[in-house]
Protein backbone atom coordinates (compact mmCIF):
# COMPACT_ATOMS: atom_id res chain seq x y z
CA UNK A 1 0.00 0.00 0.00
CA UNK A 2 1.26 3.42 -0.84
CA UNK A 3 0.34 5.46 2.26
CA UNK A 4 2.08 4.67 5.55
CA UNK A 5 -0.13 3.20 8.30
CA UNK A 6 -2.01 5.47 10.69
CA UNK A 7 -4.72 5.21 13.32
CA UNK A 8 -8.01 6.21 11.74
CA UNK A 9 -10.72 8.19 13.46
CA UNK A 10 -14.09 9.03 11.94
CA UNK A 11 -15.93 11.33 14.34
CA UNK A 12 -19.49 12.34 13.51
CA UNK A 13 -19.81 15.68 15.25
CA UNK A 14 -17.64 18.66 16.07
CA UNK A 15 -17.35 17.93 19.80
CA UNK A 16 -16.14 14.42 19.14
CA UNK A 17 -13.72 15.69 16.49
CA UNK A 18 -12.10 18.14 18.89
CA UNK A 19 -11.90 15.50 21.58
CA UNK A 20 -10.19 13.06 19.23
CA UNK A 21 -7.79 15.76 18.03
CA UNK A 22 -6.94 16.68 21.62
CA UNK A 23 -6.15 13.07 22.41
CA UNK A 24 -4.21 12.39 19.22
CA UNK A 25 -1.46 14.87 19.95
CA UNK A 26 1.04 16.54 17.67
CA UNK A 27 1.22 13.84 15.01
CA UNK A 28 -2.41 13.96 13.97
CA UNK A 29 -3.66 15.28 10.64
CA UNK A 30 -7.20 16.21 9.71
CA UNK A 31 -8.54 14.60 6.55
CA UNK A 32 -11.19 16.61 4.71
CA UNK A 33 -11.02 16.48 0.89
CA UNK A 34 -7.58 14.88 0.98
CA UNK A 35 -6.61 16.25 -2.43
CA UNK A 36 -3.32 17.60 -1.07
CA UNK A 37 -2.86 15.35 1.95
CA UNK A 38 -3.38 11.99 0.22
CA UNK A 39 -0.76 12.69 -2.49
CA UNK A 40 1.68 13.52 0.33
CA UNK A 41 0.76 10.25 2.03
CA UNK A 42 0.96 8.26 -1.21
CA UNK A 43 4.45 9.61 -1.80
CA UNK A 44 5.24 9.07 1.88
CA UNK A 45 6.28 12.67 2.30
CA UNK A 46 3.95 12.77 5.30
CA UNK A 47 3.36 10.04 7.87
CA UNK A 48 0.95 11.22 10.56
CA UNK A 49 0.29 8.70 13.31
CA UNK A 50 -3.40 9.63 13.49
CA UNK A 51 -5.77 10.65 10.75
CA UNK A 52 -8.99 12.35 11.82
CA UNK A 53 -11.49 12.07 8.97
CA UNK A 54 -14.05 14.89 9.24
CA UNK A 55 -16.07 13.79 6.21
CA UNK A 56 -18.92 12.64 8.44
CA UNK A 57 -19.13 15.87 10.44
CA UNK A 58 -22.09 17.30 8.54
CA UNK A 59 -22.28 20.44 10.67
CA UNK A 60 -19.00 21.60 9.09
CA UNK A 61 -20.45 21.44 5.57
CA UNK A 62 -21.71 25.02 5.49
CA UNK A 63 -21.59 28.11 3.31
CA UNK A 64 -23.12 31.10 5.06
CA UNK A 65 -23.49 34.33 3.09
CA UNK A 66 -24.32 37.40 5.15
CA UNK A 67 -23.98 41.11 4.51
CA UNK A 68 -20.48 41.13 5.88
CA UNK A 69 -19.13 38.33 3.71
CA UNK A 70 -18.96 34.59 3.20
CA UNK A 71 -18.17 32.09 5.94
CA UNK A 72 -17.15 28.70 4.64
CA UNK A 73 -17.22 25.64 6.89
CA UNK A 74 -14.39 23.11 7.01
CA UNK A 75 -16.22 20.53 4.92
CA UNK A 76 -17.50 22.84 2.15
CA UNK A 77 -15.99 21.55 -1.10
CA UNK A 78 -14.42 23.88 -3.65
CA UNK A 79 -17.14 22.87 -6.12
CA UNK A 80 -19.96 23.73 -3.71
CA UNK A 81 -18.56 27.19 -2.98
CA UNK A 82 -17.84 27.74 -6.68
CA UNK A 83 -21.46 26.88 -7.53
CA UNK A 84 -23.00 28.96 -4.75
CA UNK A 85 -24.75 31.86 -6.46
CA UNK A 86 -25.14 33.69 -3.16
CA UNK A 87 -21.41 33.45 -2.48
CA UNK A 88 -20.56 34.58 -6.02
CA UNK A 89 -22.88 37.58 -5.74
CA UNK A 90 -21.41 38.61 -2.41
CA UNK A 91 -17.83 37.97 -3.46
CA UNK A 92 -17.13 37.47 -7.18
CA UNK A 93 -13.41 37.10 -6.40
CA UNK A 94 -14.03 33.82 -4.62
CA UNK A 95 -15.58 32.14 -7.67
CA UNK A 96 -13.00 33.68 -10.02
CA UNK A 97 -10.16 32.21 -7.93
CA UNK A 98 -11.87 28.85 -7.33
CA UNK A 99 -12.11 28.27 -11.06
CA UNK A 100 -8.31 28.34 -11.17
CA UNK A 101 -7.94 25.76 -8.39
CA UNK A 102 -6.70 22.50 -9.95
CA UNK A 103 -9.32 20.69 -12.09
CA UNK A 104 -13.09 20.28 -11.67
CA UNK A 105 -12.72 16.69 -10.45
CA UNK A 106 -10.27 17.75 -7.72
CA UNK A 107 -12.64 20.56 -6.74
CA UNK A 108 -15.43 18.02 -6.20
CA UNK A 109 -13.54 16.66 -3.19
CA UNK A 110 -11.11 19.39 -2.11
CA UNK A 111 -12.24 21.89 0.50
CA UNK A 112 -11.71 25.63 0.76
CA UNK A 113 -10.61 25.50 4.39
CA UNK A 114 -8.33 22.56 3.58
CA UNK A 115 -6.57 24.67 0.93
CA UNK A 116 -6.07 27.44 3.48
CA UNK A 117 -4.69 25.15 6.17
CA UNK A 118 -2.40 23.51 3.60
CA UNK A 119 -0.94 27.04 3.27
CA UNK A 120 0.74 26.54 -0.07
CA UNK A 121 2.05 29.95 -1.20
CA UNK A 122 1.45 28.83 -4.82
CA UNK A 123 -2.24 28.24 -4.19
CA UNK A 124 -5.03 30.64 -5.04
CA UNK A 125 -7.20 30.69 -1.91
CA UNK A 126 -4.53 31.80 0.59
CA UNK A 127 -3.95 34.85 -1.64
CA UNK A 128 -7.69 35.55 -1.80
CA UNK A 129 -8.06 35.33 2.00
CA UNK A 130 -5.00 37.57 2.36
CA UNK A 131 -6.09 40.34 -0.01
CA UNK A 132 -9.58 40.40 1.53
CA UNK A 133 -8.06 40.44 5.03
CA UNK A 134 -10.20 37.48 6.00
CA UNK A 135 -9.63 35.07 8.84
CA UNK A 136 -9.68 31.43 9.86
CA UNK A 137 -11.55 30.22 12.95
CA UNK A 138 -9.71 27.64 15.00
CA UNK A 139 -11.29 25.54 17.72
CA UNK A 140 -9.88 23.18 20.31
CA UNK A 141 -11.38 20.80 22.84
CA UNK A 142 -12.39 22.66 25.99
CA UNK A 143 -10.53 25.76 24.83
CA UNK A 144 -13.07 27.70 22.85
CA UNK A 145 -12.31 29.32 19.53
CA UNK A 146 -9.89 31.88 18.15
CA UNK A 147 -10.24 33.86 14.96
CA UNK A 148 -6.85 34.27 13.30
CA UNK A 149 -6.46 37.00 10.65
CA UNK A 150 -4.94 35.95 7.34
CA UNK A 151 -1.88 38.12 8.02
CA UNK A 152 -1.04 35.90 11.00
CA UNK A 153 -2.45 32.62 9.72
CA UNK A 154 0.07 31.96 6.95
CA UNK A 155 3.40 31.41 8.67
CA UNK A 156 5.57 29.80 5.99
CA UNK A 157 5.44 27.41 3.05
CA UNK A 158 2.89 24.70 3.97
CA UNK A 159 2.82 26.11 7.49
CA UNK A 160 -0.11 27.79 9.19
CA UNK A 161 -0.78 29.12 12.68
CA UNK A 162 -2.83 25.99 13.44
CA UNK A 163 -1.54 24.36 16.64
CA UNK A 164 -1.64 20.66 17.53
CA UNK A 165 -5.11 19.75 18.77
CA UNK A 166 -6.78 22.59 16.88
CA UNK A 167 -9.27 22.27 14.05
CA UNK A 168 -9.86 24.99 11.47
CA UNK A 169 -13.65 25.02 11.63
CA UNK A 170 -14.34 27.78 9.13
CA UNK A 171 -12.88 30.64 7.14
CA UNK A 172 -14.36 34.09 6.70
CA UNK A 173 -14.01 36.03 3.45
CA UNK A 174 -15.17 39.64 4.04
CA UNK A 175 -17.29 41.24 1.33
CA UNK A 176 -15.98 44.33 -0.44
CA UNK A 177 -17.10 47.83 0.54
CA UNK A 178 -19.14 49.91 -1.94
CA UNK A 179 -17.29 51.16 -5.06
CA UNK A 180 -14.84 48.30 -4.84
CA UNK A 181 -13.77 45.77 -7.44
CA UNK A 182 -11.65 42.65 -7.46
CA UNK A 183 -9.87 40.38 -9.89
CA UNK A 184 -7.69 37.29 -9.97
CA UNK A 185 -5.01 36.68 -12.62
CA UNK A 186 -2.50 33.87 -12.84
CA UNK A 187 -0.18 32.15 -15.28
CA UNK A 188 0.36 28.40 -15.05
CA UNK A 189 2.35 26.13 -17.36
CA UNK A 190 -0.79 24.08 -17.93
CA UNK A 191 -4.33 25.05 -16.96
CA UNK A 192 -5.01 23.63 -13.53
CA UNK A 193 -1.37 23.49 -12.46
CA UNK A 194 -0.04 25.52 -9.59
CA UNK A 195 0.57 29.07 -10.79
CA UNK A 196 4.07 30.20 -11.79
CA UNK A 197 2.83 33.59 -10.61
CA UNK A 198 -0.49 35.20 -9.87
CA UNK A 199 -2.24 38.06 -8.13
CA UNK A 200 -5.51 38.67 -6.35
CA UNK A 201 -6.40 42.37 -6.42
CA UNK A 202 -8.89 44.64 -4.67
CA UNK A 203 -9.39 48.28 -5.65
CA UNK A 204 -11.63 50.74 -3.78
CA UNK A 205 -12.61 54.07 -5.36
CA UNK A 206 -13.59 57.26 -3.57
CA UNK A 207 -16.70 59.36 -4.30
CA UNK A 208 -14.93 60.99 -7.26
CA UNK A 209 -13.99 57.64 -8.87
CA UNK A 210 -10.35 58.05 -7.88
CA UNK A 211 -8.39 55.10 -6.52
CA UNK A 212 -8.54 55.31 -2.75
CA UNK A 213 -7.03 51.93 -2.06
CA UNK A 214 -5.29 49.31 -4.21
CA UNK A 215 -4.03 46.04 -2.79
CA UNK A 216 -2.75 42.80 -4.24
CA UNK A 217 -1.83 39.46 -2.73
CA UNK A 218 0.79 37.74 -4.88
CA UNK A 219 0.87 33.99 -5.52
CA UNK A 220 4.17 32.05 -5.72
CA UNK A 221 6.06 35.22 -4.81
CA UNK A 222 7.36 34.31 -1.37
CA UNK A 223 6.99 31.84 1.51
CA UNK A 224 3.45 33.09 2.18
CA UNK A 225 0.97 35.13 0.10
CA UNK A 226 2.66 38.52 -0.34
CA UNK A 227 0.28 41.39 0.44
CA UNK A 228 1.21 44.71 -1.16
CA UNK A 229 -0.57 48.00 -0.56
CA UNK A 230 -0.13 50.06 -3.72
CA UNK A 231 -2.53 52.86 -2.81
CA UNK A 232 0.27 55.41 -2.61
CA UNK A 233 1.65 54.51 -6.01
CA UNK A 234 -1.84 54.94 -7.46
CA UNK A 235 -1.72 58.46 -5.99
CA UNK A 236 -5.49 58.91 -5.77
CA UNK A 237 -5.90 59.20 -9.51
CA UNK A 238 -8.77 57.79 -11.55
CA UNK A 239 -7.98 54.38 -13.03
CA UNK A 240 -7.70 55.83 -16.53
CA UNK A 241 -4.83 58.15 -15.61
CA UNK A 242 -3.07 56.03 -12.99
CA UNK A 243 0.61 55.31 -13.63
CA UNK A 244 0.23 51.57 -14.08
CA UNK A 245 3.84 51.13 -15.16
CA UNK A 246 4.93 52.56 -11.81
CA UNK A 247 2.53 50.19 -10.07
CA UNK A 248 4.06 47.19 -11.84
CA UNK A 249 7.55 48.45 -11.01
CA UNK A 250 6.60 48.84 -7.34
CA UNK A 251 5.33 45.25 -7.30
CA UNK A 252 8.57 43.99 -8.87
CA UNK A 253 10.59 45.89 -6.27
CA UNK A 254 8.67 44.53 -3.34
CA UNK A 255 8.49 40.81 -4.12
CA UNK A 256 11.34 38.37 -3.73
CA UNK A 257 10.28 35.16 -5.46
CA UNK A 258 12.45 32.08 -5.73
CA UNK A 259 13.52 30.39 -8.93
CA UNK A 260 12.82 26.74 -9.67
CA UNK A 261 12.57 24.43 -12.67
CA UNK A 262 9.39 26.16 -13.81
CA UNK A 263 10.64 29.74 -13.80
CA UNK A 264 13.69 31.76 -12.80
CA UNK A 265 13.33 34.23 -9.95
CA UNK A 266 13.69 37.13 -12.43
CA UNK A 267 10.98 35.82 -14.73
CA UNK A 268 8.68 35.20 -11.79
CA UNK A 269 9.31 38.75 -10.52
CA UNK A 270 8.54 40.19 -13.96
CA UNK A 271 5.41 38.07 -14.28
CA UNK A 272 4.19 39.07 -10.82
CA UNK A 273 4.43 42.74 -11.86
CA UNK A 274 2.52 42.10 -15.07
CA UNK A 275 -0.21 40.05 -13.39
CA UNK A 276 -0.60 42.43 -10.44
CA UNK A 277 -1.02 45.35 -12.84
CA UNK A 278 -3.51 43.39 -14.94
CA UNK A 279 -5.55 42.32 -11.91
CA UNK A 280 -5.56 45.85 -10.48
CA UNK A 281 -6.70 47.36 -13.78
CA UNK A 282 -9.58 44.87 -14.02
CA UNK A 283 -10.48 45.43 -10.36
CA UNK A 284 -10.48 49.21 -10.91
CA UNK A 285 -12.74 48.79 -13.93
CA UNK A 286 -15.11 46.62 -11.94
CA UNK A 287 -15.10 49.15 -9.10
CA UNK A 288 -16.03 51.94 -11.52
CA UNK A 289 -18.66 49.85 -13.29
CA UNK A 290 -22.27 49.42 -12.35
CA UNK A 291 -23.55 46.85 -9.88
CA UNK A 292 -20.44 46.25 -7.82
CA UNK A 293 -20.38 47.02 -4.16
CA UNK A 294 -24.14 46.70 -3.70
CA UNK A 295 -23.75 43.01 -2.93
CA UNK A 296 -21.88 43.96 0.22
CA UNK A 297 -25.25 44.71 1.80
CA UNK A 298 -26.84 41.50 0.54
Amino acid sequence: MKPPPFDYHAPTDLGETLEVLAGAGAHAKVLAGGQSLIPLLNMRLASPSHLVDINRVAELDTIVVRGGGVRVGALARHAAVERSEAAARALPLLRAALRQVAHPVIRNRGTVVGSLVHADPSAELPAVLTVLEGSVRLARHGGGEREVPASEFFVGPLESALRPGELAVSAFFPALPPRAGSAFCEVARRHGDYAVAGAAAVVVLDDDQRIASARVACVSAGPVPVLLDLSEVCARRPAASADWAAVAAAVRDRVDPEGDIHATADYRRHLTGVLAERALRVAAQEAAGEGTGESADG
Partner: protein
Amino acid sequence: MGEALHEIALTVNGVVRRARVPARRLLSDCLRHDLGLTGTHVGCEHGVCGCCTVLMDGAPARSCLTFAVTADGHEITTVEGLAGPDGALSPVQRAFSECHALQCGFCTPGFLCTVTALLRETPAPTDEQVVEGISGNLCRCTGYQNIVKAVHRAAELIADEDGTPAAAGGEA
Protein backbone atom coordinates in the same frame (compact mmCIF):
# COMPACT_ATOMS: atom_id res chain seq x y z
CA MET B 1 1.39 -6.62 11.26
CA GLY B 2 -1.67 -6.18 13.43
CA GLU B 3 -2.94 -3.20 11.50
CA ALA B 4 -6.58 -2.47 12.39
CA LEU B 5 -9.13 -3.49 9.79
CA HIS B 6 -12.31 -1.59 9.14
CA GLU B 7 -15.57 -3.09 7.99
CA ILE B 8 -16.96 -1.03 5.14
CA ALA B 9 -19.95 -1.27 2.83
CA LEU B 10 -19.96 0.51 -0.50
CA THR B 11 -22.74 0.52 -3.05
CA VAL B 12 -20.74 -0.18 -6.19
CA ASN B 13 -22.64 -0.01 -9.47
CA GLY B 14 -25.88 -0.51 -7.58
CA VAL B 15 -24.74 -3.53 -5.56
CA VAL B 16 -23.80 -3.37 -1.88
CA ARG B 17 -20.25 -4.69 -1.51
CA ARG B 18 -18.57 -5.30 1.82
CA ALA B 19 -14.87 -5.38 2.57
CA ARG B 20 -12.50 -5.42 5.53
CA VAL B 21 -9.73 -2.97 4.81
CA PRO B 22 -6.94 -1.13 6.58
CA ALA B 23 -7.67 2.59 6.86
CA ARG B 24 -4.89 3.39 4.42
CA ARG B 25 -6.43 1.33 1.60
CA LEU B 26 -7.07 3.71 -1.28
CA LEU B 27 -10.49 3.46 -2.88
CA SER B 28 -8.76 2.61 -6.18
CA ASP B 29 -6.98 -0.36 -4.57
CA CYS B 30 -10.12 -1.42 -2.74
CA LEU B 31 -12.08 -1.52 -6.00
CA ARG B 32 -9.35 -3.39 -7.85
CA HIS B 33 -7.97 -5.76 -5.21
CA ASP B 34 -10.70 -6.24 -2.62
CA LEU B 35 -13.67 -6.13 -4.99
CA GLY B 36 -12.00 -7.41 -8.16
CA LEU B 37 -13.20 -4.51 -10.29
CA THR B 38 -10.09 -3.92 -12.37
CA GLY B 39 -11.79 -1.61 -14.84
CA THR B 40 -10.69 1.33 -12.73
CA HIS B 41 -7.12 1.98 -13.82
CA VAL B 42 -4.36 3.33 -11.65
CA GLY B 43 -1.82 5.59 -13.29
CA CYS B 44 0.07 8.12 -11.21
CA GLU B 45 -1.51 7.44 -7.81
CA HIS B 46 -1.24 11.04 -6.76
CA GLY B 47 -4.13 12.71 -8.49
CA VAL B 48 -2.50 14.01 -11.65
CA CYS B 49 -3.50 11.63 -14.44
CA GLY B 50 -7.21 11.07 -13.83
CA CYS B 51 -7.17 7.38 -14.90
CA CYS B 52 -8.70 6.24 -11.61
CA THR B 53 -11.65 8.66 -11.74
CA VAL B 54 -14.90 7.08 -10.54
CA LEU B 55 -18.25 8.61 -9.63
CA MET B 56 -18.83 9.08 -5.92
CA ASP B 57 -22.50 9.83 -5.27
CA GLY B 58 -22.65 10.81 -8.92
CA ALA B 59 -19.75 13.28 -8.89
CA PRO B 60 -16.38 12.36 -10.41
CA ALA B 61 -13.61 11.86 -7.87
CA ARG B 62 -10.09 10.52 -7.92
CA SER B 63 -10.26 7.07 -6.34
CA CYS B 64 -6.49 7.23 -5.67
CA LEU B 65 -7.08 10.36 -3.56
CA THR B 66 -9.90 8.88 -1.52
CA PHE B 67 -9.62 6.30 1.23
CA ALA B 68 -12.00 3.36 1.04
CA VAL B 69 -13.01 4.02 4.66
CA THR B 70 -14.09 7.55 3.72
CA ALA B 71 -16.23 6.11 0.94
CA ASP B 72 -18.00 3.78 3.41
CA GLY B 73 -21.76 4.13 2.93
CA HIS B 74 -21.42 6.01 -0.35
CA GLU B 75 -22.45 5.12 -3.85
CA ILE B 76 -19.64 4.43 -6.30
CA THR B 77 -19.97 4.03 -10.05
CA THR B 78 -17.02 2.56 -11.89
CA VAL B 79 -16.53 2.03 -15.61
CA GLU B 80 -18.08 -1.43 -15.16
CA GLY B 81 -21.32 0.26 -14.13
CA LEU B 82 -21.71 2.55 -17.13
CA ALA B 83 -23.15 0.01 -19.59
CA GLY B 84 -26.77 -1.09 -19.31
CA PRO B 85 -27.76 -4.28 -17.44
CA ASP B 86 -27.85 -6.12 -20.78
CA GLY B 87 -24.31 -5.01 -21.52
CA ALA B 88 -25.38 -2.38 -24.05
CA LEU B 89 -22.80 0.39 -24.15
CA SER B 90 -23.79 3.75 -22.68
CA PRO B 91 -24.04 6.71 -25.07
CA VAL B 92 -20.67 7.97 -23.85
CA GLN B 93 -19.06 4.58 -24.44
CA ARG B 94 -20.63 4.34 -27.90
CA ALA B 95 -19.43 7.80 -28.80
CA PHE B 96 -15.86 6.99 -27.72
CA SER B 97 -15.95 3.88 -29.86
CA GLU B 98 -17.49 5.65 -32.88
CA CYS B 99 -15.12 8.61 -32.77
CA HIS B 100 -11.95 6.56 -32.12
CA ALA B 101 -11.48 8.46 -28.87
CA LEU B 102 -9.10 5.83 -27.51
CA GLN B 103 -6.01 4.01 -28.62
CA CYS B 104 -4.30 2.04 -25.85
CA GLY B 105 -7.36 2.54 -23.63
CA PHE B 106 -5.53 2.91 -20.35
CA CYS B 107 -6.94 6.36 -19.60
CA THR B 108 -10.39 5.54 -21.00
CA PRO B 109 -12.18 4.41 -17.79
CA GLY B 110 -11.34 7.76 -16.18
CA PHE B 111 -12.46 9.70 -19.23
CA LEU B 112 -15.72 7.74 -19.47
CA CYS B 113 -16.63 8.42 -15.84
CA THR B 114 -15.63 12.09 -16.07
CA VAL B 115 -17.56 12.65 -19.31
CA THR B 116 -20.64 10.79 -18.05
CA ALA B 117 -20.90 13.22 -15.14
CA LEU B 118 -19.96 16.23 -17.29
CA LEU B 119 -22.85 15.60 -19.69
CA ARG B 120 -25.31 15.08 -16.86
CA GLU B 121 -24.50 18.54 -15.61
CA THR B 122 -23.92 20.19 -18.99
CA PRO B 123 -25.98 18.28 -21.60
CA ALA B 124 -24.86 20.46 -24.53
CA PRO B 125 -21.36 21.68 -23.72
CA THR B 126 -19.35 24.14 -25.79
CA ASP B 127 -15.83 23.18 -26.91
CA GLU B 128 -14.52 25.27 -24.05
CA GLN B 129 -16.67 23.47 -21.49
CA VAL B 130 -15.56 20.11 -22.86
CA VAL B 131 -11.89 21.02 -22.65
CA GLU B 132 -12.30 22.39 -19.12
CA GLY B 133 -14.34 19.32 -18.16
CA ILE B 134 -11.69 16.83 -19.27
CA SER B 135 -8.70 18.98 -18.30
CA GLY B 136 -7.96 16.75 -15.33
CA ASN B 137 -7.58 13.60 -17.43
CA LEU B 138 -4.40 12.83 -19.30
CA CYS B 139 -4.26 10.79 -22.52
CA ARG B 140 -0.89 10.03 -24.05
CA CYS B 141 -2.16 8.49 -27.30
CA THR B 142 -4.97 10.41 -28.94
CA GLY B 143 -3.97 14.05 -28.81
CA TYR B 144 -7.45 14.66 -27.34
CA GLN B 145 -9.10 15.83 -30.58
CA ASN B 146 -11.16 12.68 -30.97
CA ILE B 147 -12.02 12.69 -27.29
CA VAL B 148 -13.46 16.18 -27.63
CA LYS B 149 -15.40 15.00 -30.70
CA ALA B 150 -16.67 12.00 -28.76
CA VAL B 151 -17.97 14.19 -25.95
CA HIS B 152 -20.01 16.22 -28.44
CA ARG B 153 -21.18 13.01 -30.12
CA ALA B 154 -22.20 11.55 -26.77
CA ALA B 155 -24.20 14.70 -26.07
CA GLU B 156 -26.07 14.13 -29.34
CA LEU B 157 -26.68 10.46 -28.57
CA ILE B 158 -28.02 11.27 -25.11
CA ALA B 159 -30.25 14.00 -26.52
CA ASP B 160 -31.56 11.57 -29.17
CA GLU B 161 -32.29 8.96 -26.53
CA ASP B 162 -34.07 11.46 -24.32
CA GLY B 163 -36.01 12.81 -27.30
CA THR B 164 -34.89 16.33 -26.46
CA PRO B 165 -33.60 18.55 -29.24
CA ALA B 166 -29.80 18.55 -29.27
CA ALA B 167 -29.00 22.20 -28.72
CA ALA B 168 -25.34 21.61 -29.44
CA GLY B 169 -23.26 24.44 -28.09
CA GLY B 170 -20.01 23.40 -29.73
CA GLU B 171 -19.06 22.69 -33.30
CA ALA B 172 -17.86 19.12 -33.26
